């Protein structure tokens, strides 16, 4: 089980340095790599799925970089665009909404471990920004705040389409928030902890990965996660053919870009949670921490730990990328639900199934004991 000696030490300086490094790493990973890059991935991946080429015209001195330049031109365009606020809109709330939407997606990453625990030159490094003992509950709590962003955006725009979008967001999030919490109860029961690092350590054995212990929970969770992310099968709050663009109909420029970014960051967060809970987190399949450290033993004890850490972090992000790919595949393959059908699915199918899952898990655990 988790070694509690990795908790903050009396000597705060190395601890602070380490935390700052981790925050900078996660922040730059999210804002510098994923937020811009996912726009490109989405364009190119959907293009290849649909037998198209995808955006490739923007260039710098003739270099198109497979369409990557479009990301820069997009950013430039959105930066320089007029920031339009419709007449009759609530200016304060209209400004506030995109910030409320984007901040939780970033904050939720604080509790997700992107690596294990390592003993480096006597300093105990834990590859998670804040190792809260309520870990996953914090993710839920923060994620539900982002709903306010969308609802406020819908209300503050003084537009009927936005209002409809806002209402739809509210209803959808409410339904799936409940179901999502319940789908994960099985995981907590199996691993006996809410702390994500604990769950990560417990998945060192390949066959103890969440997907093998909780297959039903996995399917239910990925459905709820998609619904939370508001992407295609569940994109009713922003269904462009029905309610124009939903809650961000009246947004332009950088504020629009923030909603856009929030959507991509949520996707990264969801993939990260999926990996942390069901796909062994930072663990390499069939290779335990000790085995990996032995493999790098020729580097010396501390450097072996550093090498192990690098491998673990890379494996974690690799898994996240894989899940982003899967989420994109799903997003581009399916038509969207109708408002009432999403509610039906959430309350009448997923919620009972989640309860059944808890029941079955409890029975099996009782029997195993």
């Amino acid at each position: 089980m988790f070694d509690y000696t990795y908790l903050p030490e009396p000597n705060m300086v190395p601890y602070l340095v380490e935390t700052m490094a981790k925050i900078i790493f996660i922040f730059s990973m999210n804002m510098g790599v994923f937020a811009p890059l996912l726009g490109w991935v989405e364009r190119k991946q959907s293009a290849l799925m649909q037998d198209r080429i995808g955006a490739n015209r923007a260039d710098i001195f003739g270099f198109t970089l497979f369409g990557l330049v479009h990301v820069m031109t997009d950013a430039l365009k959105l930066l320089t665009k007029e920031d339009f606020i419709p007449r009759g809109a609530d200016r304060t709330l209209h400004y506030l909404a995109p910030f409320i939407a984007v901040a939780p997606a970033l904050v939720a990453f604080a509790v997700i471990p992107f690596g294990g625990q390592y003993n480096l030159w006597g300093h105990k490094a834990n590859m998670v920004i804040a190792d809260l003992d309520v870990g996953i509950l914090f993710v839920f709590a923060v994620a539900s705040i982002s709903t306010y962003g969308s609802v406020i955006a819908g209300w503050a725009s003084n537009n009927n389409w936005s209002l409809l979008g806002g209402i739809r967001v509210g209803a959808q999030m409410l339904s799936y928030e409940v179901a999502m919490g319940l789908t994960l109860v099985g995981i907590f029961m199996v691993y006996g902890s809410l702390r994500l690092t604990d769950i990560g350590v417990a998945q060192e054995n390949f066959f103890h990965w969440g997907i093998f212990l909780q297959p039903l929970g996995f399917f239910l969770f990925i459905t709820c996660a998609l619904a939370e992310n508001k992407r295609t099968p569940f994109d009713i709050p922003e269904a462009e053919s029905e309610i124009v663009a939903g809650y961000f109909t009246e947004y332009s420029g950088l504020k629009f870009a923030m909603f856009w970014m929030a959507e991509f960051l949520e996707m990264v967060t969801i993939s990260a949670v999926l990996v942390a809970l069901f796909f062994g987190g930072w663990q390499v399949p069939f290779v335990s921490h000790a085995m990996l450290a032995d493999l790098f033993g020729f580097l010396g004890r501390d450097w072996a730990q550093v090498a192990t850490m690098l491998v673990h972090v890379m494996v974690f992000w690799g898994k996240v990328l894989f899940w982003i790919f899967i989420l994109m595949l799903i997003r581009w393959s399916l038509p969207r639900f109708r408002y009432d059908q999403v509610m039906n699915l959430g309350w009448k199918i997923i919620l009972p199934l989640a309860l059944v899952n808890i029941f079955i898990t409890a029975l099996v655990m009782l029997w195993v004991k």
Partner: protein
Amino acid sequence: MDLHTEPLVLNMGPSHPATHGTVRFLLKMDGEKVLHCETEIGYLHRGFEKQCEAGTWTQVFPYTDRLNYNSAIQNNVAYALAVEKLLGITGQIPERSTAIRTIMCELSRMADHYTNLGASMLELGALTAFLYFVEARELTWDIIESVCGARLTSNYVRVGGLSTDLPEGFAAHVKEVFPVNRVFWSEFDKLLTKNRIFLDRMRDTGGISEENAIAYGFTGPCLRACGVEYDVRKANPYLLYDQVDFDIPVGFTGDNFDRYLVRMEEINQSMRIIEQLIDKMPGGPVNIDNPAVRNPSKEAVKGRMESMIFHFKNTIEGIQVPAGEAYVPTEGSNGEVGFYLVSSGGGKPLKCRVRPPCFALTQAMGEMVQGAFLSDIIPTFDMINLIGGECDR
């Protein structure tokens, strides 16, 4: 205490992603439920019928392309058949010409259904399915382009014949494209037809009863989806439709899913018709041997005085059509297309009235979405396949 509530009035269109500038719905909503839907058309009115009166009989052809631009050749054919009926030469059209017209009509029907089904799925969010059908449609349009020189504005049919014969290698081109199109068809089918998300959107939405459909003047796939066995190609055969073997799909309940299935099956049946006709393509001329109706060949124009005179007279004064009126119903991809023509004798139509299929279908929009959800307007409106060019003329 009762809370004071009032319905939300929503102005859907003309600039709305789903109504693409051609129609406006004035919705009264109770939350997401549609209490009342008022349809307003006319945003694409160009005065087609009046325009026809200004030119000669031949000069109408390019403008008929702009009615239902997805299946332009069907409009060409419908107009040509009506003029030929006025002239009384319906039986004299060469067999090859009739066969080519049938093939081109069916190719247009395929293209139209590809576009319609694909675009509907686009608006339901399945962009990938849309692009698979767009690819199939592009291949179909490639065939049409190789025959008449343009993809949409075909301008292919003439009174008494065609503007040009089939190109060499046409049969080979068709036989090369159809297997590819069948693959796209089956992929589209796999992506959607059994998918619960799609079924939930299409099943039992936008339904209309058989009696009401007939009362509104429904024709085409939407009428057949209600279970009514009516297709002009069977009920009142024209061209070569009485000589080929094909089935007409008929639905059960008249909801959007039936309309979708009817259209999907019609694509297959169109391929079947084309494949039969290509195998027994009659030879011979494609134009009627009557210089007063169809211009004589260039050889004759250069060589013989009479032909030259006919060529000039046909072009300048137009074909001389005897006084009278005619209407020929044809099965367009969207329903019955017909031109009601009145001639006062002379080179120009006195009156040209189009019977657009989607006009009758659009009338029923209000009834079909009454009490449904806002989201149900999308598949219903798409399955009606309102073509602005045709509805507003």
